């Protein structure tokens, strides 16, 4: 069974705006929470989204802090301090028209909503799943909708909402079987769409179990009906219920070879998407595949075409010609990935994988984890910064800031088509030092080429 923090970390980072198209204008910050709530609940539940936040590194930081909060090791004040320090470190400035409002990421109300809502949803999901195991359901087949957390200002309309969802009241208590559709309808009427709490923003209402004896006495269910449902739950458990969150993420478009939609998705996301039967699905196992098979002969992975956002960052930080060069060319990771062939010192194949876990040996690097590698799609699609090699534009450096004050850098070879050469994690100061040195060398080379003229 998942823990709430694992559930949060499994959520895919979803930008509030499409990254393959430029913003309509400088005020275009994409979907707000109202727009987001119009998207299918099943998809929302699998995504980590923040209203009008496009930057994956900010989403990633919020996701990690939410997971820490769910673990219960740190108080929310400390997390807010970390959050603000991170925003300052990345140079985030709220647009002048929203500074000090809930749209300003520095405000307490904003970060509290992000942390508390994500943690409450993850806990709601996990407790719901735990309650639907055969043993727990057999002993506690029903639940009561009631106040769990004190709130100074309480919503008064819960009984009305309960009745509107088709819920019945027993002696003044709002009770239903755990598998009753009332929970789905109660969720669907609120902003989150889940059949488990929270059912509204900042709500202190939750559920507590009602035991088998009481559920039978209230006439909610018979012993035979419980046994029948327990049998179904056993079957589901055999099938390995509750897989990883995005394990079954599939597009609504059915797979048809050579269809425009499939070609479009494949072009944008490369091998991150695949087809299974007649469905297009997100490849959940790509990180494991990378770590296990990337140095095996014949390994090849297409990470998709560069996005508009990537091209804009390359134009901003490097040169227009470099952006033109990579435009329309997908990033490929083959069996030489992490095996820096261009290094003057030839190393054994797959040496780069030493950047992971406890195998990191470079003194300046920090050991990467699987969750760091999961930022690869974000690095390629929406990096924080870009840079290029000092001598000639044969290597593109893409960087993304992480919450723990570090930078993950991917090196993309450009000798032919874009090819992932390596990916590693370093302290920000080390990366900045190297970047400054590269820029100084590049400038010196230019001056030399111009015969000493600046």
């Amino acid at each position, binding site marked *: *069974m998942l*823990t*709430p923090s694992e559930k949060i970390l499994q959520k895919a980072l979803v930008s509030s705006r499409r990254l393959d198209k430029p913003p309509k204008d400088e005020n275009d910050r994409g979907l707000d929470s109202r727009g987001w709530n119009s998207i299918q609940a099943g998809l929302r539940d699998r995504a980590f989204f923040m209203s009008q936040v496009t930057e994956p590194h900010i989403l990633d930081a919020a996701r990690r802090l939410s997971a820490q909060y*769910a*673990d*219960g*090791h*740190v*108080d*929310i*004040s*400390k997390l*807010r*301090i970390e959050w*603000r320090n991170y925003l300052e470190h990345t140079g985030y400035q709220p647009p002048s028209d929203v500074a000090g409002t809930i749209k300003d990421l520095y405000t307490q109300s904003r970060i509290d909503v992000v942390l508390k809502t994500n943690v*409450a949803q993850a*806990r709601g999901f*996990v*407790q719901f799943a*735990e*309650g639907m*195991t*055969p*043993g*727990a359901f*057999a*002993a*506690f087949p029903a639940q009561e909708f009631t*106040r*769990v*957390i*004190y*709130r*100074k200002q309480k919503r008064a309309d819960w009984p009305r909402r309960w009745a509107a969802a088709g819920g019945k009241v027993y002696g003044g208590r709002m009770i239903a079987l755990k598998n009753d559709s009332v929970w789905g309808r109660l969720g669907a009427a609120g902003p989150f769409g889940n059949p488990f*709490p929270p059912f509204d923003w900042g709500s*202190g209402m*939750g559920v*507590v*179990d009602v*035991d*088998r*004896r009481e559920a039978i006495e209230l006439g909610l269910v018979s012993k035979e009906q419980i046994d029948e449902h327990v049998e179904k739950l056993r079957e589901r458990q055999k099938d390995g219920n509750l897989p990883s969150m995005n394990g079954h993420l599939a597009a609504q478009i059915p797979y048809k070879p050579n269809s425009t939609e499939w070609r479009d998705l494949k072009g944008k996301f490369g091998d991150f998407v695949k087809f299974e039967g007649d469905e297009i699905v997100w490849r959940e196992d790509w990180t494991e595949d990378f770590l296990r098979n990337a140095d095996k002969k014949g390994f090849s992975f297409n990470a998709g075409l560069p996005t508009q956002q990537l091209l804009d960052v390359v134009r901003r930080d490097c040169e227009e010609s470099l952006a033109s060069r990579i435009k329309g060319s997908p990033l490929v990771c083959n069996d030489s990935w992490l095996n820096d062939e261009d290094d003057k010192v030839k190393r054994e194949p797959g040496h780069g994988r030493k950047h992971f876990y406890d195998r990191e040996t470079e003194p300046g690097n920090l050991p990467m984890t699987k969750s760091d590698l999961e930022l690869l799609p974000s690095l390629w699609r929406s990096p924080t910064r870009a840079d290029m090699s000092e001598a000639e534009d044969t290597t593109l450096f893409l960087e993304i800031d992480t919450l723990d004050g570090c930078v993950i850098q991917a090196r993309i070879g450009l000798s032919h088509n874009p090819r992932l050469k390596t990916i590693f994690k370093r302290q920000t100061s080390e990366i900045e030092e190297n970047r400054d040195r590269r820029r100084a060398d590049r400038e010196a080379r230019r001056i030399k080429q111009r015969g000493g003229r600046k």
Partner: protein
Amino acid sequence: MHLSLTIKDTGKLLPPDDELAQAAGRGVSNLVKRHLMQRDSSSPPSGDMPKTGYYGEAASSVTTEVNGKLAVVSIPKEGMALHFYGGVIYPGAGKKALAIPKHPATAGKRAEEFDPSRTLLSLVWPKGEKAGTLREKETDEVYYLLVARANIHADPSVLPEDSAMLDAANIAMEALIC
């Protein structure tokens, strides 16, 4: 805390071990959750400080992990273990004192968060005194109490009694075989 149950074979066909553990774990989890909810609704605010819903948050955090015959009930809420077992809190590395919020405006906020630029509060720590204060500069109101350490007394009543948890586990398992 570790509770151990021995199941005697009464001659009836018992459900699988993992289902018994799921029921027992959920039974204990429900009891703990209700206990914390009760504490949340009945505990009065502390002095002038607003009520935070701390125990309600703790109640909503209760989870049960079942692995074979073993069920582990957790309350992943910061400070719960400290309340239960008690202990001494010292300032973190590089800090000289603990800052305990004493004004409604500072509830749930570390001093570092409330006044990051250190411009709103002034430090008052008379020589030889065991405790100091951080005061609002204009009104001189005490916002934080500063102490070198804080002793937290163990309070086993934050959890139900062991016997009640054993009963809850037993009753939940009995429901499966009745």
